[in-house]
């Protein structure tokens, strides 16, 4: 009896352990494989030059540049809006039916397929907003075509729920007792939020921001038709007032994730350019992993701090 009970337990526990092990092995295999296959391609030249010879040689600098530029643009659009919206929802909007509904909708939006955002980006940002801007401003075809601005806006809408949800979680984690203490000392609502709630929620908010950046950098589907380019002979930069160089948000751009997709599926010689594909994948992985690792470490610290508090 006793023995039988133990055997069943040992068996199923072993199964669970096996699953965990399998996941570990899979992660290590993916990372190891990409690393081994990609490391050979990585060189200073690869990182700092543009593709050449019909994209069969050369580096991926424009794609790195484009990825950094678009994620920066995205976070600049999404973070202030998302954080302010979360502060409003959590601190001002109350707990009524309407607020609950909105929260559920936002939660749900986080699970909407990214290609749907791509559809929205093309239909709304490029064709609706862009074309109408052109019509009103008489700018010909300036805004109404795929561009970094629209791709970034699409990604911004995609990560908006992520930012709102993580920010709200961070705000909720600030104990009521601290709010009461601040009010008890005669703080106004905003003083309470700014001096007590936001400082405590900051690591949580930053974690959400980093995760969003990493998510944005890794997404491909939303930018397929909103601004990513197969190949661009120039960087998407322009000179402000003819002197100050800046990112040109109205230009198209190359992007790491899109580059992998294109090179692996539509390049003229897929097998010949494998090293470039692995190299690009390695760079993209390194980028997103650095970001994710940062977010994970930050969250661990944040949780620890909360537990102590």
């Amino acid at each position, binding site marked *: 009896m006793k023995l039988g009970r133990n055997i069943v337990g040992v068996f199923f526990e072993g199964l669970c352990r096996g699953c965990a092990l399998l996941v570990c092995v899979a992660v290590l295999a993916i990372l190891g494989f990409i690393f081994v296959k990609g490391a050979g391609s990585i060189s200073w030249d690869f990182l700092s030059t543009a593709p050449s010879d019909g994209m069969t040689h050369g580096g991926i600098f424009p794609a790195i540049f484009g990825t950094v530029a678009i994620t920066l643009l995205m976070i600049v659009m999404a973070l202030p809006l998302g954080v302010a919206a979360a502060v409003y929802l959590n601190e001002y909007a109350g707990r009524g039916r309407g607020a609950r509904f909105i929260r559920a909708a936002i939660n749900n939006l986080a699970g909407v397929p990214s290609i749907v955002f791509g559809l929205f980006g093309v239909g709304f940002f490029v064709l609706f907003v862009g074309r109408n801007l052109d019509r009103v401003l008489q700018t010909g075809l300036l805004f109404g075509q795929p561009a970094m601005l629209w791709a970034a806006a699409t990604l911004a809408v995609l990560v908006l729920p992520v930012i709102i949800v993580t920010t709200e979680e961070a705000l909720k984690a600030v104990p009521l*007792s601290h*709010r*009461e203490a601040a*009010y*008890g*000392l*005669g703080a106004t609502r905003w*003083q309470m939020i700014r001096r007590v709630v936001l400082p*405590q929620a900051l690591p949580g908010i930053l974690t959400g921001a980093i995760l969003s950046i990493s998510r944005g950098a890794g997404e491909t589907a939303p930018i397929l038709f909103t601004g990513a380019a197969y190949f661009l002979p120039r960087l998407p930069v322009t000179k402000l007032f003819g002197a100050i160089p800046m990112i040109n948000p109205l230009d198209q751009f190359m992007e790491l994730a899109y580059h992998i997709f294109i090179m692996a599926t539509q390049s003229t010689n897929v097998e010949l350019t494998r090293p470039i594909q692995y190299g690009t994948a390695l760079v993209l992985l390194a980028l997103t992993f650095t970001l994710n690792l940062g977010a994970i470490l930050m969250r661990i610290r944040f949780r620890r701090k909360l537990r102590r508090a």
Partner: protein
Amino acid sequence: MNTAPAIAPQPDKIEVQSLDYFYGTEQALFGVSMDIPDKQVTAIIGPSGCGKSTLIKAINRIGEISNDIRIHGDVRLDGASVYGKSVNLVELRRRVGMVFQKPNPFPKSILENVLFGPKLHGVKDRDRLEEIAETSLHKAALWNEVKDKLNKSAMELSGGQQQRLCIARALAVDPEVLLMDEPCSALDPIGTARIEETIEVLKDQYCIVIVTHNMQQAARVSQSTAFFMKGKIIEYDDTEKIFTTPAEKLTEDYITGRFG
């Protein structure tokens, strides 16, 4: 019977006037009237859930920050309604400080905790801030223990020290009233004793209202005591009288431990 006990020479600081208090539809206080004198300690005792916290949170209107509440009746501070139309809540809460049941220091340094209120209210002068920090910590009998580590995190203090830090933090905005909601319930006997000493020192300068579960504590620190049950005030009199010759049978049962 519900007027101030004769022992208090000063005029009443707080007047609670037939106060009904509702959380949503649930009524927590029923026609409570109570005059609380200045410069002494008034204790509120009673079984848990009888409305002690509700009453003192009604005085500085902190009960309404996380609840949807409704009241009838009034609470007056120096004769003026705290529920009046033009009441400045910020100013009200500055004048009526509060110490909560669980110590709730902010996860900041000791100094930042004490100076949180003064900075809110626009004190910028460094010397002045230093002075406020030192006097407040002195008053809360914490200065000697923390003077060398003012920039350490408040979370590193013991529970009793944290609670005295919260008292210092409340005192730093120079309140007139100090509300304490079971300030010792999360502390050990030593921490409790230190807080009681602190209260003893403070009572000549402030109007202190303390909610406590601990009958001995009420007897030790307060001059008047109010006994509550089920949202109603049962008896309110000089502490000595309440604990020696209570007028009500319910009070006697409670303080002799026959229930509660």
